[in-house]
């Protein structure tokens, strides 16, 4: 078998330019690898015949010299709408749903002439932290197939980590890009809220959701983010920030930067081996004249409660659209419209999704909206202000991504709270709308990857990649 997909994007691009390989070689290799590693269950739907025919068509065209992403295979999380390619959200509810339009990020990927290999497995409607709530079964961690991939973008993480494709898109509502990236040893970025259009992303919690890149290296992550960002008239929350090259600071000096580590991120909730790895990173930073302070930040320990209220509330509203009328699953057992709603939703949604919709509906009903939702939004504001204060003095907030390494596929199955607690360290970033990046910082005693979380101020992704790339080289 060829091993072109083991090469960096720049190396692949050189080979394409020199006509030593064609996009078809890359696509065939990707499908061969997917077949060999079928057990990973990282894909729900493959786009094989279309991808092969598009790769052949590209092979007839001139390689775009300045476009490093030209002809590169990419995998897409299955909650991002792809015209003509089934998009299930890993749910029975959308098992046969084929979008009739592309999400804005998909249009951008197509403009760059990347090749969509397939749609990746995930937690149902992105609700979970293990990808085990998928209607299509859980994906497996390529680092150890008996372990979870994390979630909800578990399939995207697994296919990059397992070397099936070099690039993937995920989405992150409360850590769903960064946490699986950490568990599988890859790089995952949740950009600033509004950087990337959410048009065509099937909504979970609209004020938290953000699409982002999942890749093997920091450079490739920045490269992919370059093509995703920009204002979109179809997403009123997208930012009017100018397009920039996120790779531009990679390789530049980090001396003089200031980093804060909240004491909560190194408290007893985090395993000692992970804290030890973080301290090794701190040593590297200090040796390179980066100032590192341990600080107190209020409200971080309330993040899970806030998330439960805000995310479940928004989810119950967003998922009200799945009623069996215009698209999605409709129960055949219904003699009235009311029965159609009840039965379609009961049979179409899985257990975790139903639980969250029910709690969310309760939290938003009558007086509860004031007691729970409004109060959560008040504390959310206070949390954002805490971050604002920290960023007046520091360039970054650092911490671990997770409290442990990836656990066994059969562990914690009946614990309805566990999936929330898995994201305790990453949720604050979504609350404040900040960018968060996960990069590998070593392995635990179980030989499973450990992720470093770099939190930047809003719109400072380029600076985050600068620090991340420096550490990526030092930690190797």
């Amino acid at each position: 078998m060829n091993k072109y997909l083991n090469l960096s994007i720049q190396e692949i691009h050189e080979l394409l330019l020199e006509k030593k390989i064609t996009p078809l070689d890359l696509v065939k290799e990707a499908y061969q690898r997917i077949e060999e590693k079928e057990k990973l269950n990282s894909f729900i739907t493959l786009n094989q015949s279309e991808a092969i025919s598009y790769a052949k068509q590209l092979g007839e065209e001139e390689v775009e010299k300045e476009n490093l992403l030209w002809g590169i295979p990419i995998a897409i999380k299955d909650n991002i709408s792809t015209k003509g390619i089934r998009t299930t959200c890993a749910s029975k509810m959308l098992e046969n749903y084929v979008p009739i339009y592309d999400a804005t990020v998909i249009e951008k990927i197509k403009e760059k002439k990347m090749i969509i290999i397939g749609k990746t497995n995930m937690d149902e409607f992105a609700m979970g932290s293990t990808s085990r709530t998928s209607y299509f079964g859980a994906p497996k961690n390529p680092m150890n197939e008996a372990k979870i991939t994390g979630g909800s973008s578990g399939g995207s993480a697994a296919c990059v980590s397992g070397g099936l494709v070099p690039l993937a898109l995920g989405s992150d509502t409360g850590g769903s890009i960064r946490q699986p990236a950490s568990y599988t040893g890859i790089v995952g970025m949740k950009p600033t809220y509004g950087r990337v259009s959410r048009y065509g992303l099937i909504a979970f919690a609209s004020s938290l959701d953000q699409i982002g890149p999942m890749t093997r290296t920091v450079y490739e992550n920045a490269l992919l983010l370059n093509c995703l960002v920009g204002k979109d008239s179809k997403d009123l929350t997208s930012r009017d920030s100018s397009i920039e090259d996120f790779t531009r600071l990679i390789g530049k000096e980090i001396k003089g930067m200031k980093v804060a580590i909240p004491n909560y991120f190194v408290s007893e909730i985090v395993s000692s081996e992970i804290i030890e790895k973080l301290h090794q990173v701190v040593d590297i930073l200090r040796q390179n004249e980066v100032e590192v302070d341990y600080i107190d930040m209020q409200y971080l320990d309330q993040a899970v409660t806030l998330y439960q209220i805000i995310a479940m509330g928004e989810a119950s509203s967003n998922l009200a659209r799945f009623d069996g009328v215009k698209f999605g699953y409709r129960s055949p057992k219904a003699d009235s419209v009311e029965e159609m709603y009840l039965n379609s939703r009961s049979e179409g949604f899985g257990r975790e999704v139903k639980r969250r919709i029910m709690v969310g509906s309760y939290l938003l009903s009558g007086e509860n909206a004031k007691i729970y939702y409004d109060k959560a939004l008040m504390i959310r504001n206070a949390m954002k202000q805490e971050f604002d204060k920290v960023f007046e003095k520091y360039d970054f907030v650092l911490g671990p991504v997770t409290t442990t390494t990836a656990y066994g596929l059969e562990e914690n199955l009946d614990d309805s709270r566990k999936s929330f607690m898995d994201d305790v360290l990453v949720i604050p970033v979504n609350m404040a709308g900040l960018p968060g990046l996960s990069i590998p910082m070593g392995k635990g005693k179980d030989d499973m990857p450990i992720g470093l979380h770099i939190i930047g101020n809003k719109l400072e992704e380029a600076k985050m990649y600068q620090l991340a790339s420096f550490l990526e080289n030092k930690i190797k």
Partner: protein
Amino acid sequence: MSKLTKEEVLHVSHLARIGVTEEEIENYQITLKQLLDDVDKIKDIPINHGELLVTPVEHGAILRNDSDSEMIAFEEVKKNIPATVGNFVEVPVMVNE
């Protein structure tokens, strides 16, 4: 272990328009209670006034230009509709006899 009553589960499932079976009710009595106990912790946080952060977006709503844009053909839309009659969506009876 504290549990929700059966009536409370039925109330919540009605709000969510999600049908529940007798077996499921038992499970929800426990798991929903756990989640509701968790969110109840918010009452202990000593913040009782201040601005609400509904979204991290700092700019106000920027609306699209009021102009024609691409239309999606009904034939396309129809492909995902579970049941249709001509150009209509077919649903079970909506009014009581």
